[in-house]
């Protein structure tokens, strides 16, 4: 019998590439499917949300300014590091009450999903953009541009759902502030550790754990947030959040009845794009 002391992980927030505790000093208890204690997670406050938005805004210029090809490379690197951590994700998913084969399948699906989105980085402009025929001596084309800072309320599917909302937000050059699943936030914090060690610039993804009902309204009304993904919000809270989001005309994705294992399609990527159209004279 070893009398070694247990070295337990402190699950913290992920803001601007660093892992701070909540500014409020609060935490909440995360339990497994049977109600047993698993860990304390940080209980983020509105000021943590504000700091996360500031970090995301700061990272936006650099991330959106990279070539699409380079963003794809970095996201693929994230998938590589995810793969190396697969066993840890499987353990954390099993605590939420799924069997080992189910957990393995979910982790594999999440990694594949990330790779799938990484591949879209340099193809999105070709699919979502266009060369427009116009009646005049102009070469006219439309290109998609990232909208800015996207606030994401992640769904309760702790890894596959999370990956399915984070990757499409950032692949086009947006930066994200993510509120992790409230009952199962631990895979999100582990994902943050993956992101922190895989060439993704600090601040591109910021992850908060805590109460959705407390954080979502501040993000929805924040004037420096450009879009809102409400994937993990209950139907009763949507109207108020959409109303708050109207203050600066945020792009809003409403929650739907989504099976995260299904083919995702491009909708979540194109929801956070702006279109820039350029008229270029020809034949002069």
């Amino acid at each position, binding site marked *: 019998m070893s009398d070694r002391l247990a070295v337990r992980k402190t699950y913290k927030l992920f803001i601007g590439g660093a892992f701070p505790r909540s500014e409020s000093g609060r935490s909440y208890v995360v339990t497994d499917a049977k109600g047993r204690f698993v860990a304390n997670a940080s209980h983020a406050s509105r000021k943590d949300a504000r700091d996360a*938005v500031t970090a995301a*805004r700061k990272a936006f210029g650099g991330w959106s300014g990279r070539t699409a090809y380079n963003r794809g490379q970095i996201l693929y690197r994230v998938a590589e590091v995810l793969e190396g951590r697969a066993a840890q994700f499987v353990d954390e998913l099993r605590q939420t009450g799924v069997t080992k084969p189910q957990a393995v399948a979910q982790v594999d699906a999440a990694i594949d999903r990330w790779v799938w989105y990484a591949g879209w980085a340099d193809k999105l402009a070709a699919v979502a953009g266009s060369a427009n025929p116009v009646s005049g001596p102009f070469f006219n084309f439309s290109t998609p541009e990232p909208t800015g800072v996207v606030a994401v309320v992640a769904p309760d599917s702790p890894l596959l759902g999370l990956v399915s909302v984070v990757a499409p937000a950032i692949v086009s050059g947006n930066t994200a502030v993510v509120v992790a699943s409230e009952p199962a936030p631990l895979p999100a914090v582990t994902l943050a550790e993956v992101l922190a060690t895989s060439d993704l610039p600090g601040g591109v993804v910021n992850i908060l754990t805590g109460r959705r009902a407390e954080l979502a309204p*501040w993000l929805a009304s*924040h*004037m*420096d947030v450009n879009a809102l993904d409400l994937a993990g919000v209950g139907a009763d809270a949507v109207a108020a959040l959409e109303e708050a989001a109207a203050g600066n005309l945020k792009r809003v994705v409403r929650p739907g009845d989504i099976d995260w294992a299904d083919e995702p399609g491009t909708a979540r990527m194109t929801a956070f794009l702006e279109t820039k159209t350029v008229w270029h004279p020809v034949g002069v």
Partner: protein
Amino acid sequence: MISAAELRAFLHRLPGVDEVGAGERAARLATRSIKTSAKAEAIDLAISMVDLTTLEGADTPGKVRALCAKAARPDPLDAGVPRVAAVCVYPDRVDVAVEALKGTGIGVASVATAFPSGRAPLEAKLVDTRAAVEAGASEIDMVIDRGAFLSGDLLKVYEEIVAVKDACGDAHLKVILETGELVTLDNVRRASWLAMRAGADFIKTSTGKVSPAATLPVTLVMLEAVRDFRAETGRQVGVKPAGGIRTTKDAIKYLVLVNETAGPDWLTPEWFRLGASSLLNDLLMQRRKLTTGVYSGPDYFSQD
């Protein structure tokens, strides 16, 4: 006139500064929590103390005019926001600022005396100063000769300040110590007393061109100096930290420091200024958060 020996003896009799103690005291005061209505008051006070500054080689008349418009009406959507205390520019842009600020009551401060290095003959510094005053500057920010100070030629520093003060006429004289180059807090205390005895109306931490610029411990030492100077001579001298103050939180820390060190007599734009350029936008952003209840963003405020 004072002799070199007297000046040296006086400055070296000043008690030494406990660097660790000053840092600890400043850090302790910085933990004060200022919230809700007190925060709203502090933000307005801080806005009214800002010396809105542009000191770039690329300053155009248009940029100075834009800055002046912002000084007079910091938030175009809210007339309740107080005006800033002054606009701070280079001497050859004073005329533009004076013209743009006519009738607003906002002062025009000009740096002078071969800012920021101060490495020029005295005659050139005096010409620089007179030109700024003639163009209409109501405040002159001069730099001390740090080279002379550090090599022990205290009288040269003293006499330069006296000469510039004389050239200022009615304009207020702010003396920049450039504390980032003075190395120790003992030197900051000595330079503060030297400047005050030479006739400074304000002592200012830094040019903003040298890092570190204003810090809380340095400002603490300078505030103690003006407090002690008034107790000894009856003359009140102002303090202006400048450079590196970017957030509302920082500004409020300075206000707490003023209140707890020099006292509430200094908590007015007449006796305390914040030299800054990007700070104003953060103050406006925080102010709008308090009035509207939602977080604001940098997109809603002008950048220059």
